[in-house]
């Protein structure tokens, strides 16, 4: 069947999104901005909604990439987007598809009663967009340039970590000897450590010395392998701080007077966790 010539008229953009990264870090040709620097966001089609519920494609990241490229056609290759844009993009797609409010279910501490609250995704989105990624960190006389990981790097590392954790859990098996368990545990532990170091190395785009700027990944890796612990820890701390900036803050809930009388605290925090059951599902 030939493609429907009316396909382009099916959806209209529902919202316009300003990327938290301000579209920096995208390789040339991977994103097309409007005059205002915003990106049009279309609601998901039924095909997108099915893609986001396909387990294997979810695990390897392909579903996420396909849905982003379908709902934000201005992003030509979502594998290359900086990971710090991911939450904002998914929230924007969620708003465009199902609206601004999302229900969050929780149990009241101490009394265990279930409550449902509505979260305004617009506010969460505004919080993410107003942050700024600090891309340099000074360590003694070295200026280190940090670049956020791409979605491709992030997914690759997440998959490797998942594989190693799976091996980790297999070690806890009664059918193998203690020596074998220790050997497998050590091997897996080394791989996980290498993965963590690899992620830090991938995050460094350049190091400026007094004389020159080094951006050769091999030289950076060699330097990091031979750097002292203080240098490594400062970089990790900086990366963690940037990650924290772009993470979604928990919802603070004030308890009802009757719940407080029954032993509930005056207020408590509910983590806003986006998963398949609440994020890409209608009914809120």
């Amino acid at each position, binding site marked *: *069947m030939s493609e*429907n010539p009316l396909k382009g008229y*099916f959806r209209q953009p529902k919202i316009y999104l300003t990327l938290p990264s301000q579209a920096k870090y995208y390789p040339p040709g991977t994103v097309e901005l409007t005059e205002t620097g915003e990106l049009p966001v279309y*609601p*998901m*089609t*039924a095909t997108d*909604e*099915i893609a986001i519920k*396909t387990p294997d494609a979810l695990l390897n990241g392909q579903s996420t990439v396909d849905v982003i490229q379908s709902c934000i056609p201005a992003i030509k290759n979502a594998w290359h987007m900086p990971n710090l844009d991911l939450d904002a993009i998914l929230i924007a797609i969620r708003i465009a598809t199902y609206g601004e409010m999302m229900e969050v279910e929780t149990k009241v501490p101490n009394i265990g009663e279930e409550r449902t609250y509505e979260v305004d995704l617009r506010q969460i989105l505004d919080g993410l967009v107003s942050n700024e990624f600090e891309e340099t960190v000074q360590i003694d006389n070295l200026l280190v340039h940090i670049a956020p990981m791409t979605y491709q790097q992030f997914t690759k590392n997440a998959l490797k970590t998942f594989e190693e954790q799976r091996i980790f859990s297999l070690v806890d098996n009664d059918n193998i000897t203690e020596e074998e368990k220790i050997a497998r545990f050590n091997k897996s532990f080394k791989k996980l450590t290498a993965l963590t170091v690899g992620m830090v190395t991938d995050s460094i785009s350049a190091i400026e010395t007094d004389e020159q700027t080094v951006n050769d990944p091999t030289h950076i890796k060699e330097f990091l392998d031979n750097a002292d612990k203080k240098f490594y820890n400062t970089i990790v701390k900086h990366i963690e701080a940037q990650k924290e900036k772009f993470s979604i803050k928990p919802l603070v809930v004030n308890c009802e007077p009757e719940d407080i009388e029954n032993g509930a605290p005056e207020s408590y925090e509910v983590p806003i966790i986006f998963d398949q059951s609440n994020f890409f599902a209608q009914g809120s």
Partner: protein
Amino acid sequence: MTWTTDQILAEVKVLDDQVKGFKQELFKICWYMRGSVTLNDAYLMSAEDRELVAEIIKENLDTTKKSGMPFF
């Protein structure tokens, strides 16, 4: 990822069931719209569009029940 294999398999089953239910909803839209919406069109509809089509179908069914005329 801290889920056990059983939890992962249970989630896979939930997702599979959701996809089946979802496809059924699309097929129903095509059937009740009497061919004016193709399956290809249905797959390209957004949640809001499907909701609007579902309202049209409901109105037509109600009219059919009230008038006793064949479903149109």
